[in-house]
């Protein structure tokens, strides 16, 4: 394939890593999704008793010391710990060894919605109560959003292209799409990419709750995240990281790597409409899906599965449904669609990462994960959302949608590798 006269290389996925509210490896995560496992419960990471929303999808039992030295873990915010851990998992899964010969050809591109919010909040408190000279010298390097990418590169030794996308809840998908573009054009041979987030903190919950974005179904956390259901009342925050090893096809073949799937399309648009609300009718999201299909040379009838953004907010789910219809026409009614956020909660910048993992696994294994808690579909949500139980079906091509505050719309397209 060529574009603007440049010969584009094919790019495949050879490694997956995941730290999620339903499992701290890619295998546990995928098995959990197929089982319809709920990852939402009451908040334990901070005292949420004064908050309107007291539920979240926390990562459980994560031990950073399994992935890094004690000292390194101490000087790293949780969002960066998740990224380093998931990146190491993905590289091990890909059996990809970074050494002196290839280090400059391996890059890192990890997105996050916010960055080291916990550290920012803790140090702000110290600054105000105990004085500025009591703030940790690690305050800035721990809180800045690019540090997941920077620290991951340090820990894996990747000296190639390195960057960070900060496009709210689209950040993880933007990171994967941008890494795909770099590899297509030959700027690297492999990219460790995805998204990470750890924003289960008092300030994030206060802010999102004030914006009326969060579910307040505090007495029933297991059923709080219910995308496309008429009784949905907001999103439920999750945390974690999803990381892929993307590799230029010839490079992957030359080392006999296992290939999960091929990444074939990347579409990115902006609503240019409102800071938090999607544009009514979803034309921005529809264009992102259309651009991803065009990028890959696909038509709507090629699409088997869509991993929806599906946040469980009243506005997103009906608007995304309209956008899918706009992008796919009548074929929208034939496509399997699910929101895996129903199980993990919304990982903000991490969501594009773990949802790419889910989409790729669906393409590889011809199984689609469900949307749980879908009991009474909203009238405005009349497509096939794979309610409550996973399904075995051929998945030749799948899309993954991610939309973010600011009006960012991103769609990634994955195809079975042949």
């Amino acid at each position, binding site marked *: 394939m060529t574009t603007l006269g440049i010969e584009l290389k094919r790019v495949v996925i050879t490694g997956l890593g995941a730290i999620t509210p339903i499992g701290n490896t890619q295998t546990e995560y995928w098995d959990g999704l197929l089982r319809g496992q709920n990852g939402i419960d009451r908040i334990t990471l901070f005292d949420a008793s004064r908050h309107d929303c007291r539920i979240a999808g926390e990562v459980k039992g994560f031990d950073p010391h399994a992935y890094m*030295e*004690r*000292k390194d873990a*101490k*000087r790293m915010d949780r969002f960066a710990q998740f990224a380093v851990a998931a990146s190491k998992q993905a590289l091990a899964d890909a059996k990809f060894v970074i050494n002196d010969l290839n280090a400059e050809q391996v890059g890192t591109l990890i997105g996050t919605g916010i960055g080291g919010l916990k550290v920012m909040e803790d140090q702000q408190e110290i600054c105000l109560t105990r004085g500025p000279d*009591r703030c*940790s*010298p*690690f305050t800035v*390097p721990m809180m800045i959003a690019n540090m997941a990418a920077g620290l991951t590169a340090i820990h894996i030794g990747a000296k190639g292209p390195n960057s960070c996308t900060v496009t709210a809840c689209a950040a993880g998908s933007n990171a994967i799409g941008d890494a795909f573009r770099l590899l297509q054009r030959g700027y690297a041979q492999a990219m460790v990419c995805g998204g990470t987030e750890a924003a289960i903190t008092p300030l994030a919950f206060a802010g999102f709750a004030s914006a009326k974005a969060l579910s307040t179904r505090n007495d029933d956390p297991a059923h709080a995240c219910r995308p496309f259901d008429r009784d949905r009342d907001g999103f439920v925050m999750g945390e974690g990281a999803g990381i892929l090893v993307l590799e230029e096809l010839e490079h992957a073949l030359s080392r006999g790597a296992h290939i999960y799937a091929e990444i074939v399309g990347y579409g990115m648009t902006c609503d240019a409409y409102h800071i938090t609300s999607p544009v009514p009718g979803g034309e921005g999201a529809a264009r992102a899906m259309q651009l991803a299909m065009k990028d890959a040379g696909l038509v709507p009838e090629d699409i088997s599965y869509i991993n929806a953004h599906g946040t469980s907010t009243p506005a997103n789910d009906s608007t995304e449904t309209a956008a899918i219809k706009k992008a796919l026409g009548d074929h929208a009614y034939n496509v399997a669609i699910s929101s895996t956020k129903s199980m993990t909660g919304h990982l903000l910048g991490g969501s594009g990462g773990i949802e790419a993992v889910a989409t790729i696994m669906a393409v590889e294994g011809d199984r689609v994960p469900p949307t749980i808690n879908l009991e009474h579909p909203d009238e405005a949500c009349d497509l096939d959302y794979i309610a409550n139980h996973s399904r075995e079906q051929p998945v030749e091509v799948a899309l993954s949608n991610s939309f973010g505050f600011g009006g960012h719309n991103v769609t990634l397209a994955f195809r079975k590798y042949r």
Partner: protein
Amino acid sequence: MSQDDILQKVRKIVSEQLSVEETEVAPESSFANDLGADSLDTVELVMALEEEFDIEIPDEAAEGIGTVQAAVDYIKQKVAV
């Protein structure tokens, strides 16, 4: 506070701050060369010592504290005053 009390406290703090075993922290240990401290670790370590002994260590003085013994000596003359 005796010199030995100070040394034991300093060793404990250094061990916690730099994530090294207390047994590795000898009086002659250099923070940078023996215990792996970088410039940010050193700043954090000095802050922890200030809190523990309720003293102030000005930047110029901190720059001269390169070993465990140097820290103990500095703290000793500060707390004695």
